[in-house]
Each structure stands twice: as structure tokens, then as C-alpha cells.
């Protein structure tokens, strides 16, 4: 069972879909790692236990901090979201496709095959690359609790569009086997992804997507999202419930709490006051 409310990390890394100026301000506000860990401690103190975060290199410092402070924050857990895509995108721009692979997965059979110019790549090669990439991203969480491990939407949706379903299976198997965790999938195309995952035999997957009253970045349309939630063939996590601030908080939470079968809500905030406000609203409308 996931927590009803999960704390996100966009505010820490300058991700703001509303304003680049706001994003820049937040980068300055959270430049020092103490500003990040400090807000996470406050979040914990008001009842949040789960931190859903990208595998940004700075998260390693957060993990270190809460390891040292584990006596005071014993129930603090992470939902890692991988990969931190910009790292790979920039690497491909700098070194090309093969160069980037060589940088991140130097020891894979796939890479050998690529360099030999071999025309047939086996499933084992694909498995090798995916599992090495996942393991590399998970290194920073060594010793921490990670009950759900997420595939970021850029990768999920790239694979979804391409029809590269086998990669979902490999990710699913590896996360369960190697980490004893639940695999999760973040997407901007919930109806399409839910149908696809069910279709390839991944039963009741955890899926995180934008779910908000104005249909912002809910590809396939808000009605298709609501129909998918009704069918309930997956465990839903709602993000972007405020649509980047386009919906007043009270209205946003009351609407999302009316939607069927939403297990968790993930949100980000840059002050204790905003965290408390959101928690209060979820409490108010969830009962």
C-alpha cells in the first residue's frame, strides 16, 4: 500500500511547468542541500513519509543525510524515478548514441555486439543494457528503502509510442527480482499505457500520470482518463493535480479526491505552509 500523499521533487531542481522565472527562483532557494533536507524534515514532521524523486545526482546527498539521521526519521522512504533523462540526452548530444552507451554501460554484451556490427541482438543483450542502467541509477539508494521504483515518463512514453513493450517487461522483472520493489510507470498517456501494460501481461501495474480538473497534459483526453480509472486495471497515482498552479488548491484537491480509484497523490511544494495546506485539503476531501 502506498501512502495517500507522496512528496515530489520538482521544486528542488528547477522544474516548473508554469514559469521559467519561478523555476530559477526555486533553484536558488534550494541551492544548498540543507535547504532540501530541511524541507524534507519539515515534511516528515507534518506526516509525509515518502519522497518521490528523480535520480538527480544531488539526491545522493539527501540519501546520505537521512541515513545519518535515520534514528530521527526511521520511516523515511524513497520512490526513485529513473532515469534523470537530461544526463543521457546531453551525453547522446556530446558523444553520439554509441559513445553514450559506452559511457554508461561499459560492460554490456549489447555494446560488444554494437561494436562488432553484429546484426542480431538477443533479448539477453537488451536485458543486459536495461538492468545495468537501472543498477547504475539505483547505486545512490544503497541502504535506503525504495518500495516503488519508477520509470520516468520520457522513457515510458518513448517506449510506449515505439511499441517497445519488451523493455517494460524487462524493467518490471528486474525491479521485482533485484530490488524486491514494485515497478511503477510514469506517463503522459495514461489510457494508452494502461491498456498496453495489461495487454502484455503486466497485471495491476502502478501508474503515475497527470490527473487534474482542466485536463492539462492528459493525452487521450480527460474522459478517457476517467474511463480508465473506472476500469481500475492499474493502481493510480495522480500528479500535477494543480496543473502547475492553474487550478486553485481547494478546487483542485476536491476534484481529484472525487475521482475513483486514485491510491496516491504526489505533489511538490517549496514551503512548510504549502505542504500543510495541501495535506489539510487531502484530509478534508478524502473522508
Amino acid at each position, binding site marked *: 500500500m502506498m501512502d495517500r500523499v507522496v512528496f515530489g521533487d520538482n521544486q528542488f531542481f528547477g522544474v516548473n511547468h508554469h514559469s521559467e522565472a519561478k*523555476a530559477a527562483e526555486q533553484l536558488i532557494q534550494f541551492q544548498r542541500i540543507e535547504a532540501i533536507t530541511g524541507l524534507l524534515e519539515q515534511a516528515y514532521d507534518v506526516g509525509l513519509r515518502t519522497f518521490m524523486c528523480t535520480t538527480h545526482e544531488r539526491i545522493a546527498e539527501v540519501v546520505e543525510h537521512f541515513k545519518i539521521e535515520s534514528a530521527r526519521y526511521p520511516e523515511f522512504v524513497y520512490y526513485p524515478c529513473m532515469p534523470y533523462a537530461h544526463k543521457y540526452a546531453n551525453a547522446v*548530444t*556530446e*558523444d553520439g548514441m554509441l559513445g553514450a552507451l559506452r559511457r554508461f554501460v561499459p560492460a554490456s554484451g549489447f555494446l560488444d555486439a554494437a561494436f562488432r556490427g553484429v546484426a*542480431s541482438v538477443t533479448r539477453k543483450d537488451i536485458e543486459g543494457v536495461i538492468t545495468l542502467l537501472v543498477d547504475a541509477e539505483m547505486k545512490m539508494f544503497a541502504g535506503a528503502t525504495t518500495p516503488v521504483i519508477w520509470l520516468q515518463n520520457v522513457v515510458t512514453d*518513448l517506449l510506449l*509510442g515505439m511499441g517497445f513493450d519488451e523493455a517494460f517487461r524487462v524493467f518490471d522483472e528486474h525491479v521485482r527480482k533485484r530490488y524486491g520493489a514494485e515497478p511503477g510507470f510514469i506517463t503522459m498517456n495514461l489510457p494508452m499505457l494502461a491498456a498496453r501494460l495489461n495487454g502484455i501481461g503486466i497485471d495491476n501495474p502502478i501508474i503515475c500520470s497527470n490527473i487534474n480538473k482542466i485536463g*492539462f497534459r492528459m*493525452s487521450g483526453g480527460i474522459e478517457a482518463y476517467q474511463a480508465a480509472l473506472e476500469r481500475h486495471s492499474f493502481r493510480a497515482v495522480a500528479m500535477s493535480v494543480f*496543473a502547475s498552479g492553474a487550478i486553485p488548491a481547494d478546487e483542485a484537491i476536491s476534484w481529484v479526491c472525487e475521482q475513483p480509484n486514485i491510491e496516491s497523490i504526489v505533489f511538490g511544494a517549496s514551503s512548510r505552509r504549502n505542504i500543510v495546506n495541501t495535506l489539510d485539503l487531502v484530509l478534508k476531501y478524502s473522508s
Partner: protein
Amino acid sequence: MVTRIAVVGLGKMGLSHLSIARAIDGVDVVGLCDSASYLRSVIGKYTGTETFGDYSKMLDRQAPDGVIVATPTRLHAPMVREALERGIAVFCEKPFCLTAAQSTEMVALAEAHGLVTQVGYHNRFVGTFAEVKRLLDLRAIGDVTHGLAEAYGPVVLKHQHGTWRSSKNEGGGALYDYAAHPLNLINWYLGRPDGVGGTVLHSVFSDETDDEVSSTMLFPDRATVQLSVNWSDESVRKMTTRISLWGTSGRITADRQEIRVYLRGGAELPEGYVRGWNVRDTTELTPPVQFYLRGEEYSAQLEQFAANVEVGRLGGTNDMASALVTDQCIELLMEDNRRAGFFGLTDSPMPLEPKARRSWYRPGRSHGRGENG
């Protein structure tokens, strides 16, 4: 009706186009082409799409309605030509061709065959940037007198070499890869400049190419636009493009997320706008798309291409004729940089000799430009 599309070049942009094209209604991806056999093997096996190592063979065998060209820029012209000569519509990644002469030839060829064309300047499909265009067409800020066109991002942060993006012959460099975006928006808003001045293409870390671009562009009716581009800027998370325009009745600043408009009033205000400051953001300005990958604009541009190909509608947003204007601007900037006109305190020309300022363009040698993004 299903539009049959082929994709050539399975790099970052090619894979992204492939994913979107396969996901949108009314499109069938009938062939993929790349020179790397391992990529063809993986993609072919796991997506079930037919793959080819030979571009001509793919076009002949599959006879697609349209082809998406996402290869390094030096290959754009020959590949676009092959497709157009076969009567196949073309979506080509930006920047368009290595030289404006090549671009001109492609535009003429497409016109002669009456074919749908498009170039991947995706910013024109971003809600905020499209709103700038709409406001200018309504003359909301009156006559534009000045502009600032900026792009910053963290691409080249250390000394490097190795890919075609860092090679002048194949076309790397911030001018081609980054500056092309704000330039293309300015062309959309203000048209073709009469000339450019004070252009400096600077290297920060790259051996052969520019990492910084600055210039002044002069437009008919005396508007000027400053171009300021730097892709060695670690302070921004990802590429940030920003356009500011000053006019006789107000000003506009827009980036991907938000548009801020100050209107002096007097003239008729556009619907929904008030005198003084107006702020609107992407959540209200961006129409939804069928499938979302990296931004609505990437899907919207392919949705337009597929729809235009289906009905044979010419001249949509970003046709090759419009991309040619941007190619011409890029050439102007290179030439201006080469001439290095500069007035100093002393009469000696230029405190910065072309060599000292690490300019990479030399006349008479082949030069290229970067792909994509």
C-alpha cells in the same frame, strides 16, 4: 485514410519522431532506415517495423507517402532530394540544409512536384510562441522597434571532440544547433532581415565550432534584434529560448512556459487582454495533443504534417520555404563574423583578429551545420 510514413536517422530526434508517429492516429510507420546495424536489429525486432540500411531501397520498396529525415545535416539535402524526386512528401529536421543554395534548390523541387514539406522548427507549435505571432498579427504592440532573441543551455560544458556536432564539416556549433531556434522565431515574427552586423561566433570549449553567438539584425522599417546565444551555460537545466519584443504600443516577453505582455492601450486591445501587464501560460495556451512525448509541440508538428500529407495541403507552418529564410540568416551571420567589422578606440581594425577570436568559418571551405533539437 492512413498516411504511410518512413523515418531515416534513428538518433535522438529520429527515435522521438518514430515514437510519436507510431502513436498518432492516421499514421502508419512503414519503414526505418539507419546506418547502424545494431540499432536496426533492436528496433526492428522489438517494434516489428521493417528496417533498411539503404535509404533508396527503402523509398523504392515501401513507397511511403512521406518521409521524416532526421540524419546529420550534411545528409539532409541529398536525402530530401531523393524523396522529392520520387514524389514523396518530406518532414526534415532543423536546420534545413548545409547552405542556403541547397535549401533554395529543395524549395524549388518541392514546388515543381507540388509536395507537402515541413522542417522541424517545433517552437512555432509552442502555445506561448504562437500567441506572440497572433498578437503581432493583431498589431497589439504596434510597430516593433526592437527585439532580443535568446537561447541558453548546458550542452557543451567542457573541452570536447568526437561527434559530428563538434565537427565544422558536418555541422556542429551553437549557431546551427541553438541560434537557429530564436532566429527562426524572429523570422516568423518579423520576416527576413535586411542585414546583420557585429556578429561574433565565439568558442568557449569547442575545438572547431562556436559555443556563443551574438549579433545585431536589422529589419525593414528599422527594427533591430539582438541575438544572444550560449550553449555552454550550466545555470539552466535545459535549453531555454526567450523572445522579447518592444513596440510602439507595448512589449512582449515569451518563453516556452509563459508570455508576459505589457499593453499601453490606445489601440484596440486583443480579446482577453487588458491595459498594462498580462500574463498567460502554457496551461491555457497549449492545445492538447493525441500523444505526448517531450512537449506538445513535437506531436503537434507531426500531426500537422500527417494531416497535410493526407489531403495534399501545401504551405502549412514551417514549410521548407520558411526554413530557407532561417538558413539565409545563418549564412549572413557567418559571413558577417568572417568579415569582422569593428570600430575600436584606435584606427587599427579590430582588437580581435578573426583568428584570435577563434572563428571557425573560412570562406571556400565546406562547412556544415548541426541537426536537430
